[in-house]
């Protein structure tokens, strides 16, 4: 006689638990017409704002914020540094519980999702922020509406060992797809390299190395209505990428956490494609004098020119902010070319404002200025809320293509199907 009661109770209890877990109200998406935020009040900023920033940026931002407080004596900026690990979870939880800071640094690929949750305040029209790299500016835009500024940027370049290239008979970096492959081959035959170039053999983030080639070929990842992966341009790039693995120029079975730096220093793998942080990393492993043994070059050109992936972080203001005007003024301050240059000195984060690159520290550095050049044509992926989900399937298919020699056309078809079934999320 007890059993029915028990079962009923369990059912009720688990139902209640399930319900409470899914009890998030549907929010209006940011679809429709492009929006701008209401104007920010004139004059100096005042009030106290809380700002979240990740990792090293969070550690160093208080020093920059002190300068803002000096210029606006009534304002106070409390910076909380949060770890990159799981930062995304922290944001989404805070959005759900409405316990957000006033402003924050956010990853460029999170914009679509946060805007879709109706958490971000559109950029006010009267804010003086402009002159960003086009690709970087694109990361802040969701469905035509800009939700903040690109704070700092990074892009991917071709790293190569100049001394070994010379040995292989090349005194310049390659500028074409064929040139790159020839040079990588020569590194193996003439300069004793185990593999000509280190490329990621699929898996998380490998799209960031493939897309520069696809964009160079003129590929577009969206037609404004949905994802477009199954295009001739994409196919060319993926086929080209695959050929490095098929011909044994790149390592099919490279570990997920590759030993890029030591391999680069030893000359086993004298070329790879990566971002600016790799400069200090290889120099640290290479020791003194290593900075003269390598160089960086723009991604070799496809039929539409040279392109690359633009990353970095954006800075946004949340709708829930009580000190909205002050928060936006702080964002305006961060986008100032001079402040951007100061921030480079503090953090070595590359400025997102083009004119900040004219300062000595950046313009005189040979390697850094190549990053500056590449940034002019570098692109960002579409800012749909589902992007991270969709691109995971591209990464998986790329792994099949590189490791097992799967047909690139089939792979892209699969990605397209999955992208279509997931949708843009807008």
């Amino acid at each position: 006689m007890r059993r029915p009661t028990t079962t009923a109770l369990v059912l009720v209890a688990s139902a209640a638990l399930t319900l409470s877990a899914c009890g998030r109200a549907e929010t209006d998406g940011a679809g429709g017409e492009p929006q701008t935020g209401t104007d920010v009040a004139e004059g100096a900023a005042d009030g106290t704002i809380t700002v979240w920033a990740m990792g090293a940026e969070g550690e160093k931002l208080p020093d920059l914020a002190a300068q803002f407080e000096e210029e606006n004596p009534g304002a106070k900026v409390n910076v909380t540094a949060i770890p990159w690990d799981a930062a995304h979870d922290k944001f989404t939880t805070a959005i759900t519980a409405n316990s957000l800071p006033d402003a924050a640094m956010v990853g460029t690929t999170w914009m679509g999702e946060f805007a879709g949750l109706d958490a971000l305040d559109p950029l006010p029209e009267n804010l003086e922020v402009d002159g960003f790299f086009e690709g970087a500016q694109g990361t802040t835009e969701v469905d035509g509406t800009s939700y903040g500024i690109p704070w700092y940027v990074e892009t991917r370049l071709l790293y190569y060992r100049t001394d070994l290239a010379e040995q292989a008979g090349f005194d310049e970096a390659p500028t074409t797809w064929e040139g790159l492959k020839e040079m990588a081959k020569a590194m193996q035959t003439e300069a004793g390299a185990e593999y000509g170039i280190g490329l990621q053999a699929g898996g998380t983030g490998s799209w960031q190395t493939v897309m520069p080639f696809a964009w160079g070929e003129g590929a577009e990842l969206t037609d404004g209505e949905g994802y477009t992966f199954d295009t001739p341009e994409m196919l060319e790039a993926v086929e080209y990428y695959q050929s490095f693995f098929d011909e044994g120029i790149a390592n099919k079975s490279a570990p997920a956490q590759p030993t890029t730096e030591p391999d680069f220093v030893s000359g086993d793998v004298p070329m790879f494609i990566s971002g600016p942080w790799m400069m200090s990393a290889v120099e640290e492993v290479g020791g003194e004098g290593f900075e003269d043994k390598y160089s960086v070059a723009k991604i070799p050109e496809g039929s539409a020119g040279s392109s690359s992936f633009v990353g970095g972080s954006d800075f946004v203001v949340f709708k829930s902010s009580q000190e909205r005007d002050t928060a936006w003024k702080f964002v305006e301050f961060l986008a100032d070319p001079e402040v951007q240059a100061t921030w480079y000195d503090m953090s070595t984060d590359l400025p997102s404002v083009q004119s900040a690159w004219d300062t000595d520290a950046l313009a005189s550095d040979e390697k850094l200025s190549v990053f500056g050049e590449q940034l002019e044509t570098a692109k960002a992926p579409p800012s749909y809320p589902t992007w991270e989900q969709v691109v995971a399937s591209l990464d998986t298919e790329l792994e099949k293509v590189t490791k097992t020699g799967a047909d690139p056309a089939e792979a892209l078809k699969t990605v397209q199907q999955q992208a279509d079934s997931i949708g843009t999320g807008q």
Partner: protein
Amino acid sequence: MLGSRKQQYWLYGVLAVALVAVIAPFVWMVLGSFKTTGELRQSPPTWWPETATLDNYTQLFARLDFGGYFTNSIVVATAVTAGNLVFCSMLGYALAMLDFRGKRALFVVVMTTLMIPGVVTFVPLFVLVANAGLVDTLPGLFLPFLVSPFGVFLMRQFILGLPRDLVDAGRVDGAGELRIYWRIILPLCGPALATLGILTFLGSWNNFLWPLVVAQTEQSYTLPVALALYSTGQNSTQYGLLLAGATVVVLPVLVVFMIFQRRFIEGIATTGIK
């Protein structure tokens, strides 16, 4: 006992291999914390630091407000452990030894919550804590975890194995339930409490996501959160700092284990009846 001597050699051989497999990463961590970044990423890797350096440790203590994070971690882990030991054993006692209406149903509910993964209740729990105004406070870090379904289950199963005669004897002598629980049952629960204590302390000490989300300022960060903050970047990781931090973070857990592990091997509680 274990058959022939040959079999014993075999057994020790297997155990030795297993021991090396378990200890090696640990040794690597400790030795690695004295290496330079260049050496850590060197290929082939070295076991013994070629140029031993204390840089990682100086950085760890200079850049991090180590004392503050350490205190937070200790307070949270101790509170959670104490709460679990008291409340789980209380509930376990009630479910095992008392008779009351709906006892069976209550137990099934506890078991049901055990089946629900933490990620599902994570956001609702956070909303509750936020509405209670406990965000960014230490109580917010430990209050939701003072009792765990697993702990209740563990204690109930253990107490079920204790002789009921002990409880009856207590009742005959006029002891109340609280007194029976406290003076008779709890002293016999040593091994179960030790197990629960170690598991809970370890879980709370290593917990990353909850403190990350609830702590909104660095003042209430715990060690794992602080460590992740300083060692992991957007595109790179400072392995030296991470290893040094991990070495220091592991020490308190070792101490707790040393304290409790003797109780693991202590006699079975049922020897209370002769």
